[in-house]
């Protein structure tokens, strides 16, 4: 499985040769757009890379599959939308089915293992984000933050300090501790399943 740092298959020397494309997907209300914004702020403000975050508006944004896309590069980002995903987070079966075909062959697939029961590949990471949020933190709403912790751990695309700062900057007052715990839970759970 490929990670951000181990990407060597692209030979071109263009400024965005290290371009890394992420999609966070699930259903409306799971906080995926916010997770996309937090990830983009972590990468862009904390780590100092270039980053663009896009999303789909209109009927698609209400109910059904919801998504936030994040494109990251050390160099200038030309095309702002995703072309072939290096990483896909799917929090629902529908999102997994719909967006799996948009992935690179060696891309990283991360799914919510309690909600996504039929995964179209054997090469994936599964963690029960929603169940962890409910049982370990006590609020389902932080499933997105747990997922961000897992993404940081599994892909290394964002540094841990940067994602922590970004989560805390966006956490509503009084929820900082819960969000911090959720993020760290995501990291520690991901460490257990990470391939060496």
């Amino acid at each position, binding site marked *: 499985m490929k990670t951000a740092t181990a990407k060597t298959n692209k030979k071109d020397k263009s400024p965005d040769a290290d371009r890394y494309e992420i999609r966070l997907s699930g259903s409306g209300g799971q906080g995926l757009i916010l997770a996309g914004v937090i990830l*983009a702020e972590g990468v862009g403000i904390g780590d100092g*890379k270039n980053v663009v975050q896009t999303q789909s508006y*209109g009927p698609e944004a209400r109910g059904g599959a919801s998504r936030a896309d994040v494109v990251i590069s050390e160099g200038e980002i030309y095309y702002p939308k995703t072309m072939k995903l290096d990483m896909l987070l799917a929090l629902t079966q529908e999102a997994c089915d719909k967006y799996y075909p948009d992935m690179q062959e060696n891309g990283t697939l991360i799914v919510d293992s309690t909600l996504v029961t039929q995964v179209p590949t054997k090469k994936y990471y599964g963690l029960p984000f929603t169940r962890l949020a409910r049982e370990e933190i006590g609020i389902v709403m932080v499933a997105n933050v747990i997922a961000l912790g897992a993404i940081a751990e599994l892909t290394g695309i964002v540094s841990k300090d940067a994602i922590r700062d970004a989560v805390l900057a966006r956490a509503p007052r009084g929820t900082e501790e819960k969000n911090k715990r959720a993020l760290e839970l995501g990291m520690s759970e991901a460490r257990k399943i990470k391939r060496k």
Partner: protein
Amino acid sequence: MTRKGNVKLLQGNEACVEGALYAGAQFFAGYPITPSTEIAEGMSRLMPQIGGKFIQMEDEIGSIAAVIGASNAGCKSMTATSGPGFSLMQENIGYAYMTETPCVIINVQRGGPSTGLPTKIAQSDIMQARWGTHGDYTAVTLAPSSARECFSETVRAFNLSERFRTPVTVFTDEVLGHMREIMTVPEEGELPVFDRIKPDVPHEWYRHFEITPSFVSPMASFGEGYRYNVSGLTHDQDGFPTAVPSEIKDKLDKLRLKIERYLDEIASFRTEMMDDAHVAVISYGTVARASYQAVRMARDRRIKVGAIQPFTIWPLHEVKLREMLGNCRKVIVAELNMGQLVHEIRRVAPRHTEVFALNRYDGEVMTPHQILDKIREVL
């Protein structure tokens, strides 16, 4: 690596707001419309904080009217809208051209005609920017393609409108308006900010539409003690309606020459890999970014292709464009409409150059692969 300075993740629309504040905007009147609403939202939050004014008007006709009024009272003024609202504004935009009132109008383009596609991207108002209101005038239209450029082109729009006493339109699009991008907000003083020229003559000598050597007249504000008339009727240098042929011609020449004389300063382009290019892709707004990506992909396949992005769509600098096209035998004009700027490029392209149109009008962004396919097709 940590960036220095004021780094923010901003939507294109939010960057327009920050740019407007940087340029010294003090007044915003508008009527919210997708996909431009975030500009009105941002202005409603920030204008009161700097002692400026935000008004949500009854419609877009009222909005542009209020903007023209505020500008004549001495405020740097702006509105933001999308296709249907831009159509409603046309009559009063003509009034702003005729009365030489500086103002900035941002059009976050969506699909049309009519109510069209509120949440989908298009670039189909490009000709409306040039010919939207009736009569002869010279329009200035800027087209950014990133959050950073939304900021800087909005600043530039204010500068040009103040400098030349004319409305300036900034044309973005749904994708650009809504996407969030990391940018460093320029420090104070990093970008130039221009304020309109005020009269320095005794009150009784002042002429609101004086034909000066630069064709731009100094502008007094309402209430400063100068006497003049403001009218949409073709007028003399004091602003009073005229039917004298020479005065009519002088007025219309003034509207044209105050812009055309300074084309070198107004026109702004970006080029990529044009030095040895046989094929050029011309595009603007979000599509320009797809073009840069496509050019890289084509270069990896050893195709000698380059990209030209006009930031100033109107007026198009014909001489510079011809120069940039150099020895290109083939030009592709990629736009999200059924072919608008391509007509202008056909008109100005050198005789030996073949011009191809690449169009998409299904509410989706043009992809780099689509452009790459076209490059291969025309080779």
